[in-house]
């Protein structure tokens, strides 16, 4: 199989299995399903604390050849072109297992990508701040995944390793907004200080499901 991209799909909780079944003809293999949180923007619900939605995040290697068909299927079967139904986007790979897809030394030309996916890895509990700070610049809708760092042995009463919990926030935005968003987030989250978090962006090839109203998605 020639996998050239990673497709990331964010769907409502419980829909991953259904989507994977529909994706079977397109030969996706070796992917992963993670539990995530979406951020639902609604003033009233936000005050009530109901703005967290459970999502499932799919990471799947795909063959670019199949992408138009996959996206068409998403619109047809899962109504991804409508609001709140989920989103999907693809990120190019440099290498998949043993296959080098872009020769070493060649940098991926950022100019050819109109959109990018910004990732912020930060301490557990700060993810909502990240989403809020991004919104200050009009970048809306982030998805949060909970992860952890590697354990650090500490000298405590019990012989346990304390593993730092980490949140990963990611959001898709236009490439041209990246520089300002980057400096804004570095500023607000004090990312230039060691240990406060990491921020990076991956180029996005193609998207489906980003609702364009009010300049953002979902």
């Amino acid at each position, binding site marked *: 199989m020639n996998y050239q991209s990673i497709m990331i799909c964010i769907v409502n909780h419980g829909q991953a299995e259904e989507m994977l079944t529909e994706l079977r003809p397109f030969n996706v293999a070796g992917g992963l399903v993670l539990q995530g949180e979406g951020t639902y923007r609604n003033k009233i619900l936000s005050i009530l604390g109901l703005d967290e939605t459970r999502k499932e995040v799919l990471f799947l290697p795909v063959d670019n050849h199949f992408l138009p068909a996959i996206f068409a299927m998403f619109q047809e079967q899962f109504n991804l072109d409508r609001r709140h139904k989920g989103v999907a986007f693809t990120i190019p790979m440099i290498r998949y*297992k043993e296959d080098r897809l872009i020769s070493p030394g060649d940098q991926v030309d950022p100019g050819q990508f109109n959109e990018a996916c910004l990732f912020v890895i930060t301490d557990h509990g700060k993810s909502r701040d990240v989403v809020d700070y991004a919104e200050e610049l009009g970048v809306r809708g982030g998805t949060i995944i909970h992860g952890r760092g*590697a*354990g650090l042995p500490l000298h405590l009463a019990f012989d*346990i390793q304390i593993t730092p919990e980490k949140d990963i926030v990611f959001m898709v935005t236009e490439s041209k907004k990246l520089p300002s968003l980057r400096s804004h987030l570095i500023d607000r989250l004090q990312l230039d200080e060691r240990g406060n978090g*990491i921020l990076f962006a991956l180029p996005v090839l193609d998207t489906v499901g980003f609702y364009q109203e009010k300049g953002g998605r979902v």
Partner: protein
Amino acid sequence: MNELQSKLREVSQSILPIIFYVVFCSLVFVPVDPVNIWRFLVGSFFLFIGLAIFLWGVDQSMAPIGIQMAKFLASSKTKFFSLAFAFLLGFLITVAEPDLLILGQQIEEASAGAIEARFFVILVSAGVGLMISFGALKILINHPWRKLFTLAYFLIFILAFFASNEFIAFAFDASGATTGAITTPFILAISLGLSKMKGGNSENDSFGLVGTMSAGPIIATLLYSAFLGSSTRMEGAPLVIEEKGVSAVFGALGHLFTESLLALLPIAILFFFLNFVRFKLNKREIITIVRGLIYSLIGLTFFLAGANEGFMDMGKILGTGLVKQGPVVLVILSFILGFLVVSAEPAVLVLGKQVEEVTGGYLNAKIMGRTLSIGVGIAVALSTLRIVLPSLEIWHILLPGFALAIALSWYVDDLFVGIAFDAGGVASGPMAATFVLSFAQGIANDWPTANILSDGFGIIALIAMTPVISILVVGALVKVQSKSEETQDRELAEPRTIRTLPALEEGPKFYDLLVVTLPHGGADRLVEVARNLGATGATILHGRDERGKQWAKYRLALDPQRDFVWFLVESDRSDALADSLTKEVILGEAPRVMILPVHSEAGLSAFGSMPDED
């Protein structure tokens, strides 16, 4: 679909079946006074609203508070302090439980003042505190759950020999009363927090503490009874179904609010005190927690009003009325009632969600729910069977039942042991204590050969036992299947350090994102290998693989859990790192490595713990 809709749907799915079933029974089998039907329906509405609000509240308050407390507990510098703090937590959450005080007063009356209600409450709370300390110790020193449960239940059996039948019933009821709506989610969050602190492959530790806790009151009560040696004789009062109007449901709100507030206060006070001296959470987190506490309070008040005023009398009416249907129909109807009622227990939804999250979706909430339903259905059916067959004693069921549970626990995976014993505590919640208990009492009241006191009680003990077995049976099926399906060797291979990465070149740096997937539990080994090679700053995620419905047939047998590890690496070293990692064999598989280009525009690469390029 937004969150509000999805939560309401979740709650409807848990509550509507039992409401329809009760209405069905009252139309087909039992003529019920319209006033009581209306009271039940208003109660159902309160139950619905209350459960929904309560669950939102628990998510936002009990869960984060429990996790903070667990962190505090685990990061202490002395063992004594850790264990003393665990004892304090267990003691505080139990001592304020309103159901326990009511039970204490019943015992005080029954023993003609020989046992004082307050003393009983303190005794049981101390029992819970002690068990929570043991449980926390177990998690922190990495012992399997099965040993702890075997020991605890062995002790219970020995003590039960010396106790009177009434005390045995009281002991199990006390256990049911301590695993209330507030305590269970809180203790679940504590185990989750402790296991998160340990990281790695510590799912086993996310469950089991509720099960441990519920053994505390049983041991404490039986021990006391053994010391006291008094055989109390109690007269069962005849069952009265009070004539109340619909307004009774509203009238109950006031005192239930006070009760709920009392139950919540100790945790809240301890949390705010510790937050002031230690946690120092930010404003957003505090607001969320305060809001969550208010939700929990309001939700619990409405839920209890619905359960106490709407469901309790309906249970009695149904129990009394169904007696005329004869033993066979009665047992079948009891099974269905138990099957449907358990999903309305608040803590069941909390446990199901936690199981799903901790196993990365491997064991989903639906499977948990079905298994619990079957377990509780069997419990209620057995309890009815016991009432109609006078020769069947509670011990004829409890003894082999718990013996089977302990035997199974030595066979199945320790994760299932923890979940199973937790499920026992979770299933014997407020709905069991109000609706199911009064249903059983109703049957016992009207069945000619039954005694309302000794036969009506004991149902809580059964509800606390059968889900343990049903979940352990699922665990055993998983084990049997996975043994025949998979014979692959999952031994940890020694890391082979191959070579170090090329030296960094001077000049502007570009980064790549290395994404590695491997079987769950191997992430720490992978990070160690990568560290030896000179790569730092890994983030580990936990999910399941994409086999989807392909493995639906064997969905429990195949373990689809995967670890997902991300590294940010300089572009000129990413290939070499990928080569080295692919050559490792971790848990019987070569890690699957993918490299993604990090956007380099505007110098946007990586910083923070990464070397800065400026």
